[in-house]
């Protein structure tokens, strides 16, 4: 009760870990420059690919004299992680790497990201700043329903909430009935999960006769997929939860690149750790604050795997002006769309090209296929329809079922999520101008 009454007076952000959020601008720019110079020097020394690209441009690490000069540096793309799989972009020897995480690549192989002990400490510190900005503190009971494992969401949120001093309930994803039971029995006050998973929990709770509004749950830190203001209104009307948008990506660190504060006017980027730019997605030219474009991020203090000007493919803008909360950190708008064809399904990144590589692996040739996304009871479902070709077809049911299972297995393996595979008749997938539309997204937000 005491905690709630403090929150209701609007006194927030009292956590000492939040101090860097309020660094005076000039001091922040100075810090950014110093860290940028150091990380560029480190990448130049340790990462062959980066040094080669700098050499091509006649650039050395001493050529950065202001944060804005970052625009001279070469971009890093997701394909660079694929091409150097698994360890080619590491800037630390393996004996200093204490953790590896894995995220979706664009083909059959995933991408690998590495952390030193110091990197993990930085990650935890930005997650603490996220939670503190959401008004959470010691005494909160945080249910962490992000998946634990190779995905950065689970462990990132876990260590952050622990370091904040909160009590963590590491439920991981899945098993909605148990999530709701624990939420109720433990008096959970905050939840971390994808926004669509929370929508699913809301629906399931109603079916179980649990009134979300009666629970002490008052904050939700939702990320790993884009969501909308209308979803926020839905969540906040069906529960007492104040919904916060959190942003991150494995290539940069995981969750904790940026997060909303209680003003909910964009996501503060932890600029002392991650340098944001907005560029034209076609030309790569830098765009000013307030202009929509692709978010490009540079890790300012990452050791094991520094990312210089990483193209996130997320389309957003840096909001001009300062937030009323007093933080000096710039804010980015919600991610509305992407400049590539990446899909996010139950928080997992999926590329249509991964589906293609799995089908090719099984069939040897690429059959016509279509990905159909729907939302059932708040949960994303992905169906891959595959046209049966004469080459695949067999008059024995067992052979077709075997094919079905092989396709299912290959897709589950490559995508890391359960998908539905449907064998459909030839020429039934609609083609526009001879080319099939690969993705039909029927999810409504």
């Amino acid at each position: 009760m005491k905690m709630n009454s403090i929150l209701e007076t609007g006194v927030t952000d009292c956590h000492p870990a939040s101090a860097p959020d309020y660094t005076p601008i000039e001091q922040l720019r100075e810090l950014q420059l110093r860290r940028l110079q150091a990380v560029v020097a480190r990448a130049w020394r340790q990462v062959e690919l980066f040094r080669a690209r700098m050499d091509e441009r006649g650039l050395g690490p001493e050529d950065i004299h202001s944060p804005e000069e970052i625009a001279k540096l070469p971009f890093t793309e997701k394909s660079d992680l694929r091409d150097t799989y698994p360890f080619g972009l590491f800037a630390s020897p393996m004996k200093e790497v204490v953790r590896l995480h894995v995220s979706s690549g664009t083909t059959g192989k995933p991408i690998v990201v590495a952390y030193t002990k110091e990197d993990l400490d930085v990650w935890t510190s930005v997650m603490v700043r996220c939670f503190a900005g959401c008004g959470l503190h010691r005494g909160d009971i945080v249910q962490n329903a992000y998946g634990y494992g190779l995905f950065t969401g689970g462990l990132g949120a876990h260590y952050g909430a622990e370091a904040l001093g909160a009590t963590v309930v590491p439920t991981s994803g899945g098993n909605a009935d148990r999530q709701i039971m624990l939420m109720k029995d433990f008096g959970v006050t905050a939840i971390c999960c994808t926004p669509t998973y929370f929508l699913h929990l809301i629906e399931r709770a109603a079916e179980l006769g649990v009134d979300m509004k009666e629970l002490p749950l008052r904050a939700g830190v939702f990320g790993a997929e884009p969501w909308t203001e209308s979803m926020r209104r839905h969540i906040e009307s069906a529960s007492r939860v104040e919904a916060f948008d959190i942003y991150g990506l494995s290539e940069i660190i995981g969750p904790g690149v940026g997060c909303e504060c209680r003003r909910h006017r964009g996501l503060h980027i932890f600029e002392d750790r991650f340098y944001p730019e907005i560029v034209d997605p076609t030309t790569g030219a830098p765009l000013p604050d307030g202009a929509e474009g692709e978010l490009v991020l540079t890790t300012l203090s990452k050791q094991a795997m520094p990312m210089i000007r990483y193209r996130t493919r997320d389309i957003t803008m840096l909001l001009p002006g300062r937030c009323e909360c007093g933080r000096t950190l710039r804010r980015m708008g919600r991610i509305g769309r992407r400049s590539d064809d990446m899909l996010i399904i139950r928080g997992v990144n999926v590329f249509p090209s991964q589906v293609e590589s799995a089908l090719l692996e099984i069939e040897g040739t690429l059959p016509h296929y279509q990905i159909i996304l729907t939302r059932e009871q708040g949960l994303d479902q992905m169906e891959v329809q595959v046209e049966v070709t004469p080459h695949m077809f067999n008059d024995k049911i067992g052979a077709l079922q075997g094919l079905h299972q092989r396709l299912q297995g290959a897709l589950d393996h490559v995508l890391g999520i359960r998908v539905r595979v449907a064998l459909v008749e030839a020429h039934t997938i609609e083609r526009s101008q001879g080319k099939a539309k690969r993705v039909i997204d029927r999810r409504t937000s």
Partner: protein
Amino acid sequence: MKIQQLSLFAENKPGHIAAPVRLLAREGIDIRSMYLADTQQYGILRMIVSDWRKAAQVLEAHEFVVKVTEVLAVEVPDHPGGLADVLGALEGTGINIEYMYGFPYLLGDQAILIFRFADPDAAIARLQAAGINLLASEELLKR
């Protein structure tokens, strides 16, 4: 001795059997026997038709996925134990029946069963050695 059977992939949805059957009707092709093997999601329609070449051509022209498989039409005495005797001839030979179904006409007092064997040549040799009659396609389709 081998009979050409057409197999067709069909989704398990209303109307998905009617479309190919209607096409064959329009071309004057008679379906002499058929069997639908199904799962929840899809099925395989197997047919013995009066003119398999024309039927395959018509179906393929309409973008159906068709497979031609060789099956055997086996005469089975139409009395208790008739089938057991036929199957008995195959016992211990390792010849595997992939699937089988009935042909809806009697030939005198003989029933006819359609067999799909993994190795049809081995099956022909074995059945004939056991004195079991196999029908050629002209005989099967003459009625």
